[in-house]
């Protein structure tokens, strides 16, 4: 799941790039749908990362010595 490892920066850059593309280029409807889908996926990844607990991170932190 390569997409899971997208950083916030990468995600936002990609989203902005896609939005620019949608706005400036003549995309056909299929391409448009594909782009929108990708943006939605990236937004979801970011929101999940922001709002949902990542058990792995929790576990790593717990295991650290103080």
């Amino acid at each position, binding site marked *: 799941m390569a997409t899971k490892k997208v*950083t*916030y*920066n990468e995600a*936002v850059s990609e*989203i*902005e790039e896609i*939005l620019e593309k*949608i*706005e400036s280029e003549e*995309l056909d*409807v299929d391409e*448009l749908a594909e782009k*929108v889908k990708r*943006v*939605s996926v990236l*937004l979801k990844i*970011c*929101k999940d*990362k*922001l*709002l*949902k*607990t*990542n058990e792995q*991170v*929790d576990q*790593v*932190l717990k295991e*650290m*010595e*103080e």
Partner: protein
Amino acid sequence: MQQKLTLFELSQKIKDALQSAVPATVWVVAEISELKENRNGHCYLELVEKEGNEIIARARATIWSYTYRILKPYFETTTGQYFTHGIKVLVQVSVEFHPAYGLSLNIKDIDPAYTVGDMALQRKEIIERIQDEGVFDMNRELKLPLVPQKIAVISSKTAAGYQDFLNQLDNNSSGIKFYTHLFEAWMQGSEAVPSIISALDRIFEYEDYFDAVAIIRGGGATADLSSFDNYDLAFHITQFPLPVVTGIGHEKDDTIIDLVAHTRMKTPTAVAEFFISGAELFYERLTGLEEEMVRITRERIDVKKEKLEEFAADLHQFVGGFINKKNRQLLKTGNHLHQQVNRFSFNKQYELNNLRHDLHAAFSVWKVETKNRIDSRKRILKRVVHESLLKETSGFNQLKGRLKHGSVRFLTKEQERMLRHENTIRLLNPENVLNRGYTLTLKEGRIVKSVVSIELNDEIETRFADGKVKSKITKKE
């Protein structure tokens, strides 16, 4: 003769000389190298003066408890600095010399302004040194991650500020998830610097797991900020690979670590707010991007829709025009064809008529000619037939005459021959012969014409005209 003095006498002389040489009280600049309070509230110190690292002067000093009770809080509130070892002070002292205890300085008063100035100077020197080393901005130039979500905290576990910090992060209104891990350290006193550096070193081991470091300290009672004006700690922070955010709870001028840290906040709560607002900003940005996407996409789709409708209208028009054009062309072609066909058929009709005429004429000629020919043949034939008939008839008549004539003759001749034959036949008839006396001999039903065929004793039949007899051969001659 040498004058002999006892130790006491000598001490007394020194004391006298000291008293006349030094005023009753004097302001002295020194560094506190040791400091002890005893249970009576008296304070015992060691004062030194250094040249580089070398101590060039050292003296014991005391502050009696009634003085110490007033001086200590006065100094600490004015300087924001613990009255402890390692600081430079300007003190008013009386020089005491006791024959039994030696030289000692009794501190009567203290001027905090000197220490403040000295600290400022020290601070300035440290800042200049860090700047000269070119590292001053190194931590400040680090890029804080878009969302500082994983935070290494340096604090003391029991500090109120630490709990405030955690509560603030956990209860943020956007529901953003933060991850923290505490790296405990002393936040005041002489242990503070090494213990904070050690905490930084431990965080360094886990560098990849964190977005930022928070150094926080609760308000506490009296602030001991000297730890945070320390060169070693400041240097460590400048070299640290993660952005450091400070919240060490003071309203005064920034300490050096505040200056070199990536971000300086006043309190632990403010540090938490800083992280939260960063994350919230990002969250808002996401929401903005989401709205933007919806807007742009809708816009795009609207444009497409409009275009499509335009196309549809254009197509309608185009198809209509096309059909009309084709219709007209078809009609024109039809007319043309009609005309052509008419002309063609007219031409052909004309040609046909001509041909028919020709044929008719030719046929008439042929017919007349043929009729003539046939008539002439007929006439010829008729004549020939007539002639041959005439010829045949005459031949026939001739033959008829001849046949008639010949027949009569032939018949007469034949009649005569018949009569002759009739006579012969009558004469020859065996009955007639028998009648004339001749007999007929038969043996076994056959006529016997010779004696050869008759043997002795053969029975023979002899026919007469009026009957027959049987006889037996008796003799043969």
